[in-house]
């Protein structure tokens, strides 16, 4: 049987990771988490404000999911490493979704800072989930320095453009030994299915669910989509061909128009 998705020694029952950014309320988020069937949600760290009762942590505790703290908004390895350490202390986990971006407009990762931060965090004992470009070479380097999973983007964060370079994703899947999780760019269910059909081991998405008209319904769709793609990949698709291949045999077809002579025997 298929082994479950295992990240840094932890087995997960779902191949969908839900980002919590973008939900209009904690109640909406809570229902989306439940509908998604996920076991892991990302959170960010920001200066505390007096938000009163009903916190994100309460939602996480009530839904029973694990926390994956991120380093969203960091531009340098130095800053990302410090934020990762804050996350470790805040949530008592050595997991970190490492994001080191290079540009506010595209939010694309800064390859050199990312690799530098990944190496430092792995050395410090973190289980690093590395958000990365859809670049097979960089993904390979991240796996080599010890990241627990590499998470290439399908397209820019929040863009909803889906998977722009399926070819690169397939190469990444072939080249790295650690799990590959498609992270960012998912717009709708078929994008998530495609990611899994390309061989990804999981999908991380936020906006596609939290900003959908009905987040809980979209979360349910994503759950089914990830599962469908995973099953289809395991089942083995048929090859693409240029011409039709009849699925019904031509043998034994009746002669309703009397076009052939009777059998002489």
């Amino acid at each position: 049987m298929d082994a479950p998705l295992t990240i840094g020694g932890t087995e997960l029952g779902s191949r969908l990771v839900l980002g919590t950014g973008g939900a209009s309320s904690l109640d909406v988020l809570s229902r989306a988490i439940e509908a998604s069937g996920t076991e892991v949600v990302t959170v960010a760290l920001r200066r505390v404000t007096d938000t009163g009762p009903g916190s994100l942590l309460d939602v996480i505790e009530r839904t029973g999911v694990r926390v994956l703290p991120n380093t969203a908004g960091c531009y340098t390895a130095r800053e990302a490493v410090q934020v990762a350490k804050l996350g470790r202390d805040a949530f008592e986990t050595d997991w970190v979704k490492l994001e080191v971006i290079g540009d506010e407009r595209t939010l694309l990762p800064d390859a050199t800072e990312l690799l530098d931060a990944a190496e430092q965090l792995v050395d410090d004992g973190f289980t690093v989930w590395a958000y990365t470009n859809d670049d097979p070479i960089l993904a390979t380097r991240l796996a080599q320095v010890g990241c627990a999973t590499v998470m290439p983007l399908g397209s820019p964060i929040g863009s909803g453009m889906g998977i722009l370079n399926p070819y690169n994703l397939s190469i990444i899947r072939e080249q790295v030994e650690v799990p590959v999780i498609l992270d960012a760019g998912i717009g709708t269910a078929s994008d998530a299915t495609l990611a899994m059909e390309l061989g990804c081991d999981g999908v991380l998405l936020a906006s596609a669910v939290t900003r959908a008209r009905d987040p809980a319904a979209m979360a349910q769709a994503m759950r089914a989509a990830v599962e469908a793609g995973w099953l289809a990949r395991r089942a083995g698709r048929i090859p693409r061909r240029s011409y039709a291949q009849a699925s019904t045999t031509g043998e034994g077809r009746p002669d309703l128009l009397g076009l052939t002579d009777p059998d002489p025997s």
Partner: protein
Amino acid sequence: MRIEVNGQPRELDGPTTLGAVVDGEVADRRGVAVAVDGEVAARDRWDELTLTDGARVEIVGAVQGG
């Protein structure tokens, strides 16, 4: 003595622990982390660490984020 908490100046009457400053900012220490002068201060040290004049304290907690 003057310190900075999340970018805001704060006057302290006398020697104050980091733990006391944190408790002044949040009702619940759960899910909170702190850096002093850019370095993470582990939670098991908050009540031992006495802040010095000019300390820059950053207190962070969980928010929604991808």
